[in-house]
Structure formats: C-alpha cells, structure tokens
C-alpha cells in the first residue's frame, strides 16, 4: 500500500493507483475531459493537472501513479486558472450551439464550462466547418464539435478492436474521422455506438428517429397504422437514469404505461421474443450438440447471433466462421416478424397497416432492421423504426410524462408475458444461461432444480464454464466487449487447424461491455459501477419471475401450437432465421 497526502489529507491506496483515482477516496473530484473510467488514460485534455509539493511542474492526475510520501495539491488559484484557460481554449474551437445540440444538458464540456464559471470567451472562435457524416443509419459524426479527447478512438480501437475511427490530420487540423477518411457507413464500423456512449460532447451521437415515430403516432385518418412497440430487456434497468433514478432501477411496468400514454396501441416485450430465440437457438444447439459426431446439423461451437454489432463484426472480420453462427434472428427481428404475421393475423390487421417500433439499448439495431431481405420476412419491414433508450427518454420528456411517478401496467398479450430467461438476455452471459436452462430440458426431458448458472455471469471479459447435461459435458464460453472476441475465436480456429476438439461447444458474444445493459444507445455515463447495478437489476427481475425458463412460458407454447409448429421447423426458418455473408471492411 502507498501512503500519500491529497490536499493535506492522508490517503492509503494500492500501488499503481493514479492520483485521480486516489483523490476519489478522500472525496476530491479532479476535473477532466478526456478521462473515462472505461479507458486507459490518454492524457490529452490537460485539465486534470495537479501540483506535487516541491515540484515546479504540473502533472496529469489521470496518468500519474501516486507514490509513497507524495503530497498532491489538486486545487489552488493557479491550478484553477490553468484549467480554466485550457477550457477556454477548447471552447474557442467548439461551436456555441448548445441549445440545438443533441448533448444539451448532458455535455461534459458544457458542465466544465459551467463549473469553472466561464462567462466570456477570451479567444476568437476557430471553427473549421467540417462536414457532418450522416452516412450511417445508426450514428452521426459531427467533427466540428469534436474536442479531440480521443475517447471514441480508444473505444473503437482498444475496447472494441474495430478500428473504424482514427485521428487524421495534424496539429490544429487534427480531426476524428472514419479510418481511411471514408464515410462512416463505408468502413469497418459495426455501429455498436460505444463511441457515442463515450463521447463527452455532441460529436458522435445516435441517429435520432423520434420524428418518424412521432409522425406515425400522431397520424389519423387513412394513413394511420396500428402502432406496435417492443422494449428490449436492457432498456428497463437503464431508462430510469435519464429521470434521476439509480442505475439498475427496474421501471419495466412504468415504461409500458409511458408507451401507452405516448400513443402506442400495442405494447409487447422483447423478452418474449428472447424466449422465442431460446427455443430456436436452443433447439439449434441441441441438434448440433447431439449430432456432434456426424456434424450433419452444423459445426460446433455454435455462436450466438443476437447482437447485430457482433453479426457485422463477424461478417467483416471472421467470414470464415459463418458456419458456426446461429441462424436464429435476434429477439428484435423475431418480434418484428411475429408482429406482422402472427399478431396481425390474430388481430385481423393488414400487416401493411402495422407500424412496428422497437426500443433498444443499441444503435446497431437501427442497422439490423434493414440488414438484409430476411428482415422483411413478413412481406413488410418487420421492424419499421428502432429507437434507442436515449431517444425514448427524450420522447417521454417531450410528452411531459412523469415517468418516476407513473402507475405501473402490464404488457399486451400474447407477446408480452415473458420469463426470467428472456430478461437476462440484457446482461452478458444471459443468452447462454437462458439457453442452458432450456437445453437441459430439451436434452434430458427434465426440469432443472437450480436454474442459476453463475459461472457465466459478471464483468470479466471472457468467461468459461462447463455444465453436465445428461451425463455429457457442455463447455461454454461467454465474451463481451468486442475487443475480447478475437482471442476466443482464434483459439477455436487454432484447435480446428490442429485437428483438436473444439475448446467450447457454445459461445455467447455481445459487442458491448456488460452486454446490452452497457449498449451504445443507453443513457450516458456508463461505468463498470453502473453496469454492475444494471446487471443486478436484470437478475433481480429474473429471480422475481414466475417462470425462469423460456420453454415454460405458456405463451411461447401457445405460439408454437397455434402458429409456428415446432422450433427450427419450416415456418420458423421462414420467419425467425437469417443467413450471413462475408463482407469487406471497406465498401469500394
């Protein structure tokens, strides 16, 4: 342990702790702009500078490890002046259109300017008028607002290993741009949106589609459609944050009410579609697993395909592993297909007169709903518009709905009621756990006594577990945060190349850290602490569920009986499965 002083207060921390981290222990907040808990400090902004007693130089608190006997001063008039000047310099290259900015009131630069009492801008504006890149359906890049903190680059390269964003130009001409200076949509971007979730300002943000949804909700007369909405598992434990609730607070039933008040006609829950996914993907796994020797049902490991950013990554970076990919669509798309077929039929609606909206924690889902022609399996676009959690929060605020104090309500039948297995899709390891719960029953014909597979839970980047089902060992791996995936896949490829048995039979992959609860479309300010709280919210919901295995959902059983027939049957393949193809990193 290291003993040091911060502003005269003794602090004891582990070796290697930075000054910035150590300061938190004594309730000292050191201001910073480029620093983010998720990322290796990049030391760009120069705002977190502090003094060390006996040294004339200032050091960066974000990267300087606290040393034995060190005496740190984090606040004095000189430091405040230096920081303020740096903030003023940054403001001199930042447009002043806070009022019209997507990050208004949620902008870290705006907050710093307020905290430091910036009342005038002493330096002339030096804006470059760089064009906005709106080529992507998921994300919009406005380089003129960029403060070049480097977070998006670090996220995209270090956390996600995608390398879609890079610094271009030098000196004052440095800018953030898609790698190779292409349009964002034409490069390797997998649209996970982590850049937007980490951007401190309004330089990268989700493509806001609330207007399209409002237009449809307000429509009357012959143009009116039945507006059907689904909400994803991870949304329910994060939306509350936008309304001042603690991370992890479960507001599911308030969201149902809010959606009704916004004007949606039918409220479904993506959890139901998650149950459906488990029936399809679980069956697919059982088929492959029980036919491992012949391989006639497809190769192992089976890899999950719920995450559209991951699907895109695989198509771009690991096209050779497509045969290992589950053909099951994601819950969003299964729900979309079922809304415009099964539900429309049941409700006597023309599918063309149904407007299907999904509320997702994810920016890639905006891309997924038009990914290929299988997303039109109902004959219509199965999901018309995808909104992120952040967009839904804005709609609720615009409508003047007091979410926090809203009465609770239930989703609509038949695709509302769901199980604990469906809700845990929102957390890393959840799809795997849900699949194992059902696979156990499919293989053994028996129900599990303890449905908790805790080995696949938690925030460690790669998790492994082995489960005995009917006397056979099932080896599984769970990876989340795109940068952790290559290691897993490379081990699979290596085993295959060497003619060895696959290290795992089943692999779950989620592009975002923590799974969907840490999605790129979730409320800002996600840290591991927030993720842990959201995950807690997810598992609490699971534990409080009547049914905790997908196959136990009576409405799922009903759907198969009334409409789909059997899992992985003919109709399922038509509506609930898709296919993949290898894609180039850069469009020509």
């Amino acid at each position, binding site marked *: 342990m290291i003993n040091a002083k911060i502003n005269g207060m003794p602090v004891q921390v582990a070796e290697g702790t930075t000054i910035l981290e150590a300061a938190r222990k004594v309730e000292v907040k050191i201001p910073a702009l480029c620093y983010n808990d998720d990322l290796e400090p990049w030391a760009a902004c120069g705002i977190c500078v502090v003094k060390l007693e006996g040294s004339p130089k200032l050091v960066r608190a974000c990267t300087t490890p606290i040393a034995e006997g060190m005496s740190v001063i984090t606040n004095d008039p000189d430091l405040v002046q230096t920081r303020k000047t740096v903030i003023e310099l940054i403001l001199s*290259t930042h447009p002043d259109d806070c009022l019209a900015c997507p990050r208004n009131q949620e902008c870290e630069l705006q907050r710093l300017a307020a905290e430091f009492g910036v009342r005038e801008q002493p330096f002339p504006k030096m804006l470059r008028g760089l064009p906005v890149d709106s080529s992507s359906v998921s994300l919009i890049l406005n380089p003129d607002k960029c403060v070049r903190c480097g977070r998006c680059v670090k996220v995209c390269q270090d956390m996600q290993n995608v390398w879609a964003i890079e610094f271009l130009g030098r000196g004052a001409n440095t800018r953030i741009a898609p790698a190779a200076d292409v349009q964002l949509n034409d490069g390797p971007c997998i649209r996970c949106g982590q850049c937007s979730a980490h951007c401190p300002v309004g330089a990268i943000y989700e493509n806001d589609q609330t207007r399209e949804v409002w237009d449809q909700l307000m429509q009357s007369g012959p143009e009116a459609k039945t507006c059907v909405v689904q909400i994803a598992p991870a949304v329910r434990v994060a939306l509350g944050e936008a309304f001042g609730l603690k991370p992890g607070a479960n507001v599911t039933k308030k969201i149902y009410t809010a959606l009704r008040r916004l004007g949606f006609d039918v409220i479904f829950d993506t959890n139901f579609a998650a149950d459906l996914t488990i029936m399809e993907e679980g069956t697919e796994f059982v088929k492959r697993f029980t036919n491992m020797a012949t391989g006639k049902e497809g190769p192992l490991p089976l890899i999950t395909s719920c995450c559209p950013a991951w699907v895109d990554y695989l198509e771009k970076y690991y096209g050779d592993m497509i045969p290992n990919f589950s053909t099951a669509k994601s819950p969003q798309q299964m729900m979309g297909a079922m809304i415009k077929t099964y539900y429309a039929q049941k409700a006597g609606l023309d599918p063309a007169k149904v407007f299907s909206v999904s509320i997702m924690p994810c920016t890639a889902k905006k891309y997924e709903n038009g990914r290929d022609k299988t997303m039109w399996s109902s004959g219509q676009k199965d999901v018309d518009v995808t909104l992120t959690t952040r967009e839904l929060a804005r709609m609720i605020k615009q409508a003047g709905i007091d979410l926090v104090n809203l009465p609770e309500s239930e989703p609509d039948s038949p695709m509302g009621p769901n199980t604990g297995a469906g809700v845990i899709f929102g957390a890393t390891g959840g799809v795997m756990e849900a699949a194992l719960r059902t696979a156990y029953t499919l293989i053994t014909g028996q129900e599990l006594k303890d449905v908790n597979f805790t080995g696949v839970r938690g925030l460690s980047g790669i998790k492994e577990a082995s489960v005995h089902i009917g006397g056979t060992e099932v080896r599984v791996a769970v990876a989340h945060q795109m940068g952790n995936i290559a290691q897993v896949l490379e081990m699979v490829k290596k085993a295959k190349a060497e003619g060895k048995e696959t290290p795992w039979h089943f692999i779950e992959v989620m592009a975002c850290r923590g799974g969907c609860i840490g999605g790129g479309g979730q409320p800002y300010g996600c840290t591991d602490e927030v993720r842990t709280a959201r995950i807690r919210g997810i598992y609490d919901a699971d534990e409080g569920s009547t049914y905790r295995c997908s196959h136990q959902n009576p409405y799922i059983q009903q759907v198969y009986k009334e409409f789909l027939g059997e899992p992985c049957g003919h109709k399922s393949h038509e509506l609930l499965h898709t296919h993949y193809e290898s894609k180039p990193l850069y469009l020509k």
Partner: protein
Amino acid sequence: MAYKNFILVCAGTGCESNKGIEIYESLLREAEAQGVKNDVQIVKTGCFGFCEKGPIVKVLPSESFYVEVKPEDAKEIIAEQVVKGREVKRLLYKKDEKSASNVKVEDIEFYQKQFRVVLRNCGVINPENIDEYIARDGYSGLEKALFKMKPDDVIAELKASGLRGRGGAGFPTFMKWDLTKKAPGDVKYVVCNADEGDPGAYMNRSTIEGDPHSLLEAMAICGYTIGSHHGYIYIRAEYPLAVERLKIAIKQAKDYGLLGKDILGSGFDFDIEIRLGAGAFVCGEETALLQSLEGKRGMPTPKPPFPANCGLWKKPTVINNVETYVNVAVIMTKGAAWYSKIGTEKSKGTKTFALTGKIQNSGLVEVPMGTTLRDIVFDIGGGIRGGRKFKGVQTGGPSGGIITEKSLDEPITYESLSALGSMMGSGGMIIMDEDDCVVDIAKFYMAFCCDESCGKCAPCRIGTKQMHAILEKISKGTAVEADLDKLEKIGKSMTKASLCMLGGSAANPTLSTLKHFREEYLEHIRDHKCRSGKCKDLVVYEIDASKCIGCGLCARRCPVPCIAGEKKQPHVIDKSRCIKCGECFKACKFGAVAKK
C-alpha cells in the same frame, strides 16, 4: 607503397550539394591523368564543420586547408600539391581579403576554441570505411566492455564520466541505462533518436555522415550493458546520405563480426535496424518516437511509464540521441577520468552546436561545456555578418528562448541555459542581428510549433494556434495591448498543461522575446511600427524626391516592378503594388528610399 599526400574531401550533405562529389571525382581523374595516382590517396570524409566556407578540401601532411573549392580546381590541386609539392595559395582560408592565408587548421579562428570529441573523426576518416574508424581506436570501447567489464562496470564508468543526455533536458545517461538494466524483462531495446528536427540544426546528421561507426559501437555497448539484443536507429527520411552511410556501416560492422551474432566471439548478440521517420518534428519526442517506431501515429504518451520500464512494444528501452551515444563511444575508449575533466562540474564533456543565422562563420562547432556564448558567437563564429549589431541568440530551437547581449558571458551549461529561459536542446544555435524583428521570430517559431503539434493535447493544439493568431495580429498592427496579456496567459497555461515538451516549451520563444523586448512588441501595437522592417504590413517605402537623382537602380531591382520615373528625375513607388521586399531600400546609394 606509401602515399606522399592524402587529400580529404568533405562529403557531408552541405558540401556534397555544393559539388563535393564532383570535386572528389575530378581529383581522382586528375591524379590518374597526371600520372600520380599512386602518390596520393583521395578520400571522402565527413563534415569539417566550417560549412560557411565549403566545399572544403584538406591536404595532408601539409595540413593545407582549402575552402570554397570548385571541381575545376582539382587540376591545379593535383598539379601543384601532388606533382610539385606546392600549396595552391589562392584556395587557402583567409579571414578576410587583407589577412594572410591560414595554412593549418588549428590556426583558423573558427577552430581555435573548439574541442572535438563527438566530431573527432568527422573530416578525418572516410566514413564509408570501417578500417579507418578502427585505426582510430574504433570499436576498442566495445571490445573493452565485452571482455573486461561487467554491465555494472559500464554503468559505473558512465556515472564517473558525468555524461548527460544531449537531446534536451540533460538526464544523466548512466541512470537511464541503469533503470533499463534493472527493469524486469527478457526483451529490451536500444533506440537511437536521430530525428533531428529543430530548424537550423544538423549536428546529428553531420555526426552520422562523418562517423557512423561511433554510433553503432555505442549502441552495441548499451545493448551489452542493459541486456538487449536489438537496436533501432530512428532517423529522418530527409537525411538520405546519413541513412546510406549507416547502412554501409552496419553492413561492414556485421562483416567484421562487430554486430550480429556472437560479437568478437564474446557470445553477445546485437543487431541494429534503421527506421525512417516521416518528418514529424514531434517524433523527436521520445514517447512519440516509440509510437512511430511501432508503426502508430506519432503522438506522445504520458510519462510515467518511462521508456526505461515500458518503452518500445512495452519493453524496457533505452532511448538516447545520436550525440549522447557518440560520447559513450569516446568515454569507453578514453575512460571516464579523461572525459570528466572536460566541461563544468555539472555539465561534463563537450556540446556540438549548429551555428546559423546572421553569423560570419556558420557551421558545425563543438566546444567544451562551460564555454561562453560570446566565445562561440564572436570568436568561433567570427561575429555578426556585415558588421551589424548582435541582437540575440536562439538556442534549443523552437523550444528554446532568446538569449540577449547581457547574458553572452554566461558559460553554457544545462542549468545556465534553463535559468536564462532557454534550453540546451539538441544544439541548434541561431544568431540574430538588429535586422531581425522579435515579433517575426516569435511568430516563425510559433507557426512551426503550430504545424508540428501532434494535435493530441488541447493546450498545445489550440494554444499554439491562438498564440500564432495573436502574433499575426501584432505583426499586422491590429493588436491591442491586452493581447500581450493573452499571449502570456495562454503561454503559461500551455507550458504547464501540455503533455510533452513540444507544447511545454512552444511558448518559450514568445515569452522570452516578450520578456526581453517588450518595448518592440509595444511599438508594433501602439505605433504600428516595426523597427527592423520585417513586419511588412507595418512598413512603407517612399522615395524622397529631394535626394533621388533618378539613377533608376531601385526600379531595376524592384521585382514587381512598381517603381517608375524618368531618367535623372525623382522616382516614385506605387505603394498599392509594393510588396515591401526592401530591395529598393538596400539598392539606393543616396539614401533616397525611406523606410517608414
């Protein structure tokens, strides 16, 4: 067969671009044609340092020092010197027209106060011939290290020598090596920073061009000391000749078993690779250099971690500049006791400087630490060109500050230069005279830093740009006095909050000129006047009709042309078209052109 004469032809970049190679080839041809090719050995060498008077040819044993030689002089040199044994008097160095010719190098003022340790072989040996280096004790330091010393002995020797890094801040070299040696890890690297980027600086280039093996030898010694088997030389692609000589030297050293596997049968392996930099000034900053070496964008990374623990590819790495390494080679050959006698108490050894600007004798010089700036500028450099008045000297390139007349008698040490608001830097030394404008100088360096900022950290990226904009305003006469406060405000914050020394020192030229020449800044602002006439927006050229005799010289010199007038009648400048180049002002013999 013994040669009667040896002719050394400078083949450094400066002389080479002045037909040095043609001179060399003409000499060879003439020796052949005049039938004396067996009497004379003609050798291409590295830089003699006296670049002002290049191309330089030196003849031994007479020590004749020929300056400003042309290829057509070859015939005469061979005919007189080799065939007849007489000097070519007209080519010998003369201080000025009236002075007598200097025959010997040591009699030339330029060399008198110099002491060549780093440059000991430059202009003496053929850099493309390893035998010549070996003949001058080359690689004996490596041999001594490998067979007579343990790594800790090398470190102790360096400690005793007092050697400090020659690239900038002057960190003790032994400490760097020791930290890297002690850092845990099997794989370690030795890196040479040859990314010399200061405007006007070329010490490292000339050193490598003239004596590449010294660098290789020292890097191998470093490898042995810290337990590394791989070295990289990161050198600017703009130094093709130095790169070429390094390539030749590495090949020769490998052929001789002085690099590669099992060096001299000691069991120690060490290889060196060359990596070319793409010309970014910031890549001279060690962490940015390491990033670039790894193939990444050259942006500095925070320290700690220091390269000694976490350097190239996150492995412990020694990174020193060219001059530091070359000093090591000398120390290992001649011993710390000898070396530590040179210089001052805290700054040992010598320092090379590239003397440029308004100086009589521009060139590459090497002086013992502790020599005064006055000695360098007025004795070695021969004072200001054209008898103009000395104004200041900029050391440390764009990171340094201006040092004025009153500090000229300060002995040069790391500490004294810092105390004067400048720095040692790698050794650029630019002399300014009364015709230089401090605003213009500050603007020049700020523009340089603004262009060369990597763009990573906000204080430097934006601070340099904003400061440059203010300096631009001052030079145009549109600034207000409060702008000077802004310059200081940004400058101070940039100095304190920048991540690396580029931003940390980019304000130095501005802040130091502001400190020493505030009046001149105020003249620009209050009086819209630039006393040197460099700030063209503040200058108006007019012809005083009462003095003009209508000779027309100004009109002929005017490049626009915008001066008109009848013969023998007063001429007039069309101010709307005048580009304020000052040619008319310089040309007029009657003082009729007035600069206002």
